[in-house]
């Protein structure tokens, strides 16, 4: 553990710079832009989960006077692009809600009316809606040419399994032979949605000169540019993407759905086009998170030493091979445990559901849920406290991970100790109440980030960064620049320019922004310090080495003289031009973080309804730049995970049609469903980042599944193994017990 450092600006609870616009309603989101001459588009979606498209006749729709353009798959310029069939279906509708055609008209109502006039001749096919159905010997094929990748011997016939992967360390057979107790169970998780409150939307304009613009809500506007440019055969320099404020994403807004279609309709109509998904379209055709079926086996000695861990994971990828977050599911499952013998095998399986998208720590909640449930059961079996059991086997510095690197200093032990010392863990439970503990692990990646800091003539600075701000990251960028330059936080503003005004930056995802883009900000700020010294040296006629930058002031250490940033910037024209700091980096390493959550749940045994009565979320932030927003990530992740554990699921009928595509029936947690969530920040600095930052956004969604799953199981005295633990499922278990 590195020595704690004193910081002047980071670690404060400042007011976020974009906050004023957001509490007053001034902030502009995806649906808030209207352009002169703009028309509206709507999307015709498949009413079937699986159907061959024999023909599409759009002539009646096109004949309507207010209709200005209609597009189907054939209008996509780059037909060879593999992403094209999820923008508009080609030969087959692969899920309920799959986009079939788009119509742009003078009003939204006219576009809606025109959809009803498009005639599609479908040959309805049997839907494949589960991993069991997909893998059954007699299963109908979703893709007739899908040969499973990653098998020891390449299969000769197609199936619905798109790939297999495995990871191994040590010798699990030998490990199990050493064990006194071995438990093996299967766990299931449902299809869930990210549930961002802002539907996908965009406003686009295709210009005659080939220059185009897209305004949309996205976690990665460079990704929108790359995807749209590829589908429309455009050069990147001719497509400008503006990232609006983003009304939640959680991984679901890393994907492009509407923008290429809108741009095709704009090109055809010669008018700016706006598309906004309805909420039912969001549920049917965006997201979702992968449903899974996971088998886990763990062996331990009587003294609590885990000797072997093995898992077989099955992840739905929707109808698109390889979309499942299987890799991270396999890589993360056993990382909290320093156990020499670990083996994971994983399968990516296609079903007739929307293409799976990233969802906060994609893949990890599902696999780690299975592992953590079994760890809790094993602790009970061995008669060891579940936190002590984890402490005894906890991953720490130098633990060899299953997925590759040895861990640097990490904070799992510290989180477990904080859990053990928490007020909640010491509190007593009453009748019908249960307690569950779970750990969670996520990588928190690095990657490419671009930052420019322009110093203004008055000595203030404008930070330009390429990472859309999904949860307050502009505040943390200001604070990191302030810390490096030793100038007050409000000296800096932070904005996310469009794709024409900053170089490529990877998508906001993987909890990379504060880590990687923050590192780029620090690099740009350091670049400015260097230039400040050079400019002051020029004024003083000394060498830059004779200038010190301290407390936000240049000091001539070989003589008299001080210059503030304002003085240096005011004189910049005379010392070589204006001052810009550059931080275009590829952040190496990652910020592995662990979390430990405690859930106390009371179950109403008459109805099966579960109430979370107490909840504590503990997580290693490395260094919390803005503690308020770090706590907010822990609490928000906990709430999403609680929803996943207790209520949320896609419900399909026998024909594969989604029956609950709305917030009334797909019930995310309400204010009245939750208690206060105690957030405890542990800080074990990350050696890869100048201030020790680890990503904080995703880890918090992982532990709630097993913490709640165990708490409910304990409350009713029945081990539950399938999520969600909705009232009907829990009541059924109680009645059948």
């Amino acid at each position, binding site marked *: 553990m590195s020595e704690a450092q004193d910081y002047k600006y980071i670690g404060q609870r400042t007011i976020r710079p974009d906050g004023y616009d957001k509490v007053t*309603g001034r902030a502009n989101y995806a649906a808030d832009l209207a352009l002169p001459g703009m028309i509206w588009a709507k999307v015709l979606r498949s009413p079937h989960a699986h159907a061959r498209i024999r023909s599409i006749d759009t002539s009646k729709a096109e004949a309507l006077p207010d209709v200005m353009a209609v597009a189907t798959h054939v209008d996509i310029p780059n037909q060879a692009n593999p992403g094209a069939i999820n923008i508009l279906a080609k030969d087959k509708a692969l899920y309920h809600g799959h986009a079939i055609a788009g119509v742009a008209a003078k009003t939204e109502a006219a576009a809606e009316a025109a959809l009803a006039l498009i005639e599609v001749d479908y040959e309805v096919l049997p839907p494949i809606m589960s991993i069991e159905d997909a893998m059954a010997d007699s299963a109908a094929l979703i893709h007739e040419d899908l040969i499973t990748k990653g098998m020891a011997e390449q299969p000769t016939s197609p199936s619905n399994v798109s790939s297999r992967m495995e990871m191994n360390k040590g010798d699990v057979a030998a490990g199990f032979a050493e064990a006194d107790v071995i438990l093996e169970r299967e766990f299931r998780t449902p299809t869930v949605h990210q549930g961002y*409150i802002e539907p996908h939307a965009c406003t686009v304009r295709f210009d005659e000169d080939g220059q185009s613009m897209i305004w949309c809500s996205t976690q990665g506007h460079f990704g929108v540019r790359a995807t749209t440019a590829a589908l429309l055969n455009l050069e990147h320099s001719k497509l400008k993407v503006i990232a609006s*404020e983003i009304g939640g994403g959680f991984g679901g807004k890393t994907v492009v759905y509407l923008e290429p279609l809108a741009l095709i309709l704009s090109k055809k109509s010669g008018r700016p086009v706006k598309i906004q998904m309805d909420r039912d379209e969001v549920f049917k055709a965006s997201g979702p998170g992968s449903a899974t079926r996971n088998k886990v086996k763990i062996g331990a000695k009587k003294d609590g030493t885990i000797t072997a861990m093995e898992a077989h994971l099955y992840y739905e990828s929707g109808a698109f091979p390889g979309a499942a977050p299987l890799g991270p599911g396999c890589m993360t499952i056993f990382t909290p445990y320093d156990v020499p013998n670990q083996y994971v095998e994983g399968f990516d399986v296609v079903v007739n559901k929307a293409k799976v998208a990233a969802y906060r720590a994609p893949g990890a909640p599902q696999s780690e849920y299975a592992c953590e449930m079994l760890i809790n059961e094993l602790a009970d079996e061995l008669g060891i406290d579940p936190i002590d059991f984890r402490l005894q086997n906890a991953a720490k510095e130098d633990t060899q991970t299953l997925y590759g690197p040895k861990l640097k200093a990490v904070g799992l032990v510290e989180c477990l100790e904080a859990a053990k010392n928490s007020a909640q863990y010491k509190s007593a439970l009453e009748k019908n109440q249960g307690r569950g503990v779970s750990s969670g692990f996520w990588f928190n990646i690095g990657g490419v980030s671009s930052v420019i800091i322009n110093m203004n003539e008055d000595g203030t600075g404008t930070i330009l960064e390429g990472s859309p701000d*999904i*949860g307050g990251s502009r505040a943390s960028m200001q604070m990191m620049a302030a810390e490096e330059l030793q100038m007050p936080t409000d000296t800096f503003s932070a904005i996310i320019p469009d794709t024409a005004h900053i170089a490529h930056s990877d998508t906001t995802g993987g909890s990379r922004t504060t880590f990687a883009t923050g590192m780029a900000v620090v690099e740009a700020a350091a670049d400015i310090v260097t230039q400040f010294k050079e400019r002051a040296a020029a004024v003083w006629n000394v060498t830059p080495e004779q200038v010190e930058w301290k407390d936000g002031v240049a000091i001539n250490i070989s003589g008299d003289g001080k210059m503030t940033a304002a003085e240096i910037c005011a004189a910049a024209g005379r010392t070589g031009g204006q001052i810009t700091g550059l931080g275009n980096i590829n952040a190496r390493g990652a910020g592995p973080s662990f979390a430990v959550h405690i859930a106390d749940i009371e179950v109403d045994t008459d109805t099966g309804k579960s109430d979370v009565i107490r909840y504590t979320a503990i997580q290693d932030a490395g260094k919390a730049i803005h503690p308020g927003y770090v706590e907010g990530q822990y609490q928000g992740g906990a*709430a999403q995970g609680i929803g996943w554990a207790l209520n949320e699921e896609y419900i399909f009928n026998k024909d594969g049609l989604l029956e609950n595509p709305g917030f009334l029936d797909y019930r995310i947690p309400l*204010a009245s469903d939750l208690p206060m969530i105690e957030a405890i920040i542990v800080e074990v600095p990350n050696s890869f980042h100048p201030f020790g930052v680890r990503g904080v956004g995703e880890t918090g969604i992982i532990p709630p599944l097993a913490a709640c799953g165990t708490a409910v199981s304990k409350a009713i005295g029945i081990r539950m193994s399938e999520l969600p633990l909705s009232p009907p499922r829990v009541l059924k278990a109680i009645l059948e017990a």
Partner: protein
Amino acid sequence: MTKSHITATINGDVREFLCEPSDTLLQSLRDELGLTGTKEGCGSGDCGACSVTLNGRLVCSCLVLAVEVDGAEVGTVEGIGEPDKLHVIQQKFLEHAALQCGICTPGLIVSTKALLEENPAPTEEEARYYLAGNLCRCTGYDKIIKAVMDAAETMRGAA
């Protein structure tokens, strides 16, 4: 189809606009009147992002037809706070970091103001149930509830 001519007092200003009989108040606010602070999250009254007051009563503007507001008083987030001074509720949301993405925030500000006008001293449970119609997917509500309770206390002190 003939459009209807509507006159309504919106955030204290008398405004006139045209609407189709099927247009919702939400559509008219956003697309005709340029008041895009009111957000659409679901269009079915389940998420509260479009919360406004209609003659002082808290409603989802996606469930109100625009023609229904003829002669009525409508309050949106744009009418809360002064040009140079945030309302206490807005200030407390900022101080408590009670927003992340911010899409639910306008609706929550409108609903919280309605709550505190009805009940200046809500318990945590009363606040949670009153605001149960305003979905937030980012925060887990913890900091929102803290901001609401702090705003209530501050407003009581000022009254």
